[in-house]
């Protein structure tokens, strides 16, 4: 199937192979992987600190001391990524009535009955949830992480800060892990093409039509024909 390349509005500078649509700009992809890789590092080292059964992870990643030293620094990179994403995508992540409808019909999405879903724009409601989940948890992780980074500077009289921080850090990390698992599952296994899109930046037209019809319409001015 060959599709003539549509006029490309957003990123005229980036060449896209014929028949494909640019979904993620270079900057978006860099930011995504910055956040993703730093998150994975933090996840692995964090899991090592979380459970004795996973402490081998820290050793595999260079030892407990290195892990402890790098975890907060890499965490800063992660937070920087999250903030960048906020700058890039926050406006696109507004929850709309369609999104609320999407949530209501999520069971169809789970059953892969995507045609029963309300029209989806560039991001579906699940992705928006992921975004906001990571954003809020990221801020919480950052704040509690600061306290945990320098516990020796927290005076004894403010020790409640440390007590709160450990709980918040662990809880928000757990939330992000849930989001992360679904995200990776969706991106790598469930939605073929999604993983490539965040590597190369482009998707096939069919991908756009199928998963993000409203976005396709926005790009090409008409709703995609159902197959």
């Amino acid at each position, binding site marked *: 199937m060959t599709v003539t390349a549509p006029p490309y509005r957003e990123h005229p500078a980036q060449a896209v192979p014929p028949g*494909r649509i640019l979904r993620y700009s270079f900057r978006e992809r860099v930011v995504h992987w910055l956040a993703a890789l730093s998150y994975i590092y933090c996840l692995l080292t964090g899991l*090592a*600190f*979380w*459970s*004795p*059964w996973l*402490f081998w992870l*820290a050793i595999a990643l260079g030892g*407990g*001391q290195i*892990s*402890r*030293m790098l975890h907060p620094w890499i965490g800063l990179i992660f937070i920087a990524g999250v903030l960048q994403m906020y700058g890039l995508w926050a406006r696109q992540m507004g929850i709309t009535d369609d999104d609320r409808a999407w949530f209501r019909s999520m069971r169809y999405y*789970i*059953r*892969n009955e*995507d045609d029963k879903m309300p029209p989806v724009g560039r991001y579906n409601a699940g992705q928006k949830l992921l975004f906001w989940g990571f954003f809020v948890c990221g801020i919480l992780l950052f704040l509690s992480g600061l306290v*945990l980074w*320098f*516990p*020796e500077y927290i005076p*004894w009289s403010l*020790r409640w800060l*440390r*007590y*709160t*921080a*450990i*709980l918040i850090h*662990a*809880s928000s990390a*757990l939330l992000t*892990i*849930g989001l992360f*698992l*679904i995200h990776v*599952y969706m991106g790598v*296994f*469930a*939605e*073929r*093409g999604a993983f*490539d899109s965040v590597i*190369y930046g*482009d*998707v*096939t037209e*069919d*991908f756009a039509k*199928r*998963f993000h019809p409203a976005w396709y319409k926005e790009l090409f001015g008409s709703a995609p024909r159902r197959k």
Partner: protein
Amino acid sequence: MSQETLRIQKISAHAGAVPGEGTQREFQVCKLIDTTTCIGCKACEVACMEWNDLPFGQTVFDNTYQTMPDTRWNYWNLIRFNEHETEDGTLMWLMRKDQCMHCADPGCLAACPSDGAIVQYTNGIVDFQQANCIGCGYCITGCPFNIPKFNSETKRVYKCTLCADRVSEGLEPACIKSCPTGCLHFGSKDDMKYLAETRAKQLRDHYNFPKAGVYDPPGVGGTGVIYVLHDVTEPENYGGLPKDPHIPLTVKLWKGPLKWLGNLAMVGGLIGLFVHYLRFGPKSRDEEFETKREGEQP
């Protein structure tokens, strides 16, 4: 397996059973600190510094005889001085030797995420093994007595070892040996409890301290350091000795329910996703959405 390994009954962040647990008949050792005969001479502070070869630090005069406001990574033993006026206006100069309490149920060990960084020997000594310490400082959070202190150069945490090196060779801790008045005493926990109760009774019956008693807080399972206080109902007067110390609630939540919930959720999530894949598979099974590049075989 060396004897030294068997002499460990608890290991921080350790997966699986602890080799020494229940394998030794060693009795629990204990320091008794009789604050009613402490003269605040600081011999214990110096003996600690000297025995452990700790480097000297800077101090500043702070309107007190107390050497510094708190213990430091290189100052494990600090006498806290407090001028206290009783209700009848009698002035008391309370002095309390502050150091690691060697809790039976140590909050530091519970909080520690690094395998083998904090251990509890079978004689009850809680010891930090800096070789295994990752410097996260969770022990600082776990301790209800504000004892572990962080060295920002070495990124390790340090505290009183109860002179584990001496005790394991059959000697008493350095501070105990130095104490001029004998307000510090060392022996088995049972013997120290007996001595402490006897002294407290003498204080109540003969020296007009009706509230004298022994501080051995049950909230942390009892401690390897116990105090005789003039007034056991108000330990806070002795430089903030907590009345009923516990491992902080959030540390318990974090290490307890949250851990199990979290583990369950993570494992459950993984299983759930896998089952989803088996049941529903990918949203599209064909390769149409996958990128085909030049040179690649379809």
